């Protein structure tokens, strides 16, 4: 059994003033705390969990080996990061017209959250210790470059655009889940033998059997991978395989082995840990940990296909570019 990162993280949490336990009065540093159980006796993870954070996935390179902010650094980094993300900045703040278009609309619409993780980590990635995604292999780099190049070309059909723009997968829905612009909520349901992970982005429900059945045959590939779950102590472990070559998570390929771990560490906290293992794509596996906070807010439907006028506008924009001389690019979205 692979060693979880929960214990080392708990140690890290107790080493800084703002622990999860201090924040919610309930738990992560309290080893005597016992997670509630369902009527059928497994840890109860049910509820809506908010995984917004402005802690970056990868540690900014200039921070070197610094794993945790010290002193005023966290507050300073937070202010700088919020300033960088502030979509109310316009030309008078030095924003170019091109960036202004990419920002799309003002701050009202964006919901990244406004806090770093309470343990003051400098990156969500905890392994490798660099806090950064390991280098791509030559094969991974080649595939990633090809995907980027294809996306940069003017789209001939909707298939030429990314899966998020086509309303197939949400851009924060992975799997794995990754804090992003909005809809950073996941609703966990449980019943005997199953867990369901419903993320608010594009109504993406992953139904996870917990009965130790095997994975699908290797030739059957799925947008979200083929998920199988089990309990490791009080942790729900979800192993996903059988991804497709039509999606990529930060450079991953169809043969990514994704392991996600959900551990309830307090009344209002779940620690979400995932490990990407894909030797075809990355030179080493890598792991991120994201605290999820319980929220009383409801989930809202996000029926992306309902009125996706934007796809027509993008395709028409590409045709207009061709009529004007063929200099149009595909834009910089998903």
């Amino acid at each position, binding site marked *: 059994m692979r060693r979880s990162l929960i214990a080392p993280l708990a140690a890290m949490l107790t080493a800084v003033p703002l622990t999860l336990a201090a924040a919610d009065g309930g738990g992560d540093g309290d080893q005597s705390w016992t997670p509630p159980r369902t009527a059928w006796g497994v840890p109860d993870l049910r509820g809506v969990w908010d995984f917004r954070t402005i802690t970056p996935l990868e540690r900014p390179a200039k*921070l070197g080996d610094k794993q945790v902010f010290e002193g005023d650094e966290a507050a*300073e*980094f937070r202010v700088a990061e919020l300033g960088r993300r502030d979509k109310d900045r*316009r030309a008078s703040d030095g924003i170019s*017209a091109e960036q202004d*278009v990419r920002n799309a609309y003002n701050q009202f*619409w964006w919901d990244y959250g*406004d806090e770093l993780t309470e343990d003051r980590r400098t990156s969500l990635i905890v392994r490798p210790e660099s806090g950064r995604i390991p280098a791509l292999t030559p094969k991974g780099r080649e595939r990633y470059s090809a995907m980027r190049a294809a996306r940069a070309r003017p789209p001939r059909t909707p298939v030429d655009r990314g899966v998020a723009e086509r309303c197939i997968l949400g851009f924060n829905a992975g799997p794995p889940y990754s804090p992003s612009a909005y809809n950073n909520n996941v609703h966990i349901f449980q019943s005997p033998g199953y867990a369901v992970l419903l993320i608010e982005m594009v109504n993406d429900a992953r139904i996870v059997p917990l009965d130790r059945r095997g994975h699908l045959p290797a030739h059957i590939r799925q947008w979200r991978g083929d998920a199988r779950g089990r309990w490791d102590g009080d942790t729900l472990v979800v192993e996903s395989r059988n991804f497709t070559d039509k999606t990529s998570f930060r450079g991953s390929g169809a043969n990514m082995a994704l392991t996600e771990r959900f551990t309830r560490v307090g009344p209002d906290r779940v620690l979400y840990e995932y490990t990407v293992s894909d030797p075809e794509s990355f030179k080493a596996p890598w792991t991120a940990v994201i605290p999820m906070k319980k929220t009383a807010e409801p989930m809202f439907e*996000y029926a992306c296909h309902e009125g996706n006028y934007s796809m027509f506008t993008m395709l028409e924009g590409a045709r207009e570019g061709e009529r004007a001389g063929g200099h149009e690019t*595909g834009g910089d979205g998903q």
Partner: protein
Amino acid sequence: MSNRRFRTWAGILVGTLAGVIAALAHHAFSAEFDAKRPVNLKGTVVKMEWINPHAWIHIDVNDDGGKVERWMIEGGTPNTLFRRGFTKTSLMPGTVIVVDGYQAKDGTQKANGRDLTFEDGRKLFLGSSGTGAPRDGRDPIER
């Protein structure tokens, strides 16, 4: 925090996270809208479509010759409207709004609503500074 230290952190962030920014928008707005076609439209709301993935506001705009043009203005996800307390009665037909945005690349009468205001200058969709504080000049990230 001093401006100098702020600039240092901002420099680190801009330098290292720039590659992530493009992955955060739902759509490639730069594929839809033209940075060389900024528009400033004053129009009367005809209807608002609360649809996914993005809400659209339809407005009638009087051009210089007295002709009325119908424009469609793209906003963000309707989830955000709910969460921010915006309801179906918050923007009624007949309301006059001003659109500061960019026209679609195909030249049709569609634009993104980069900033939307009422006639008196109040923002239609009022964002906070990102810290939850109002924009009153006192928040350190306001510049």
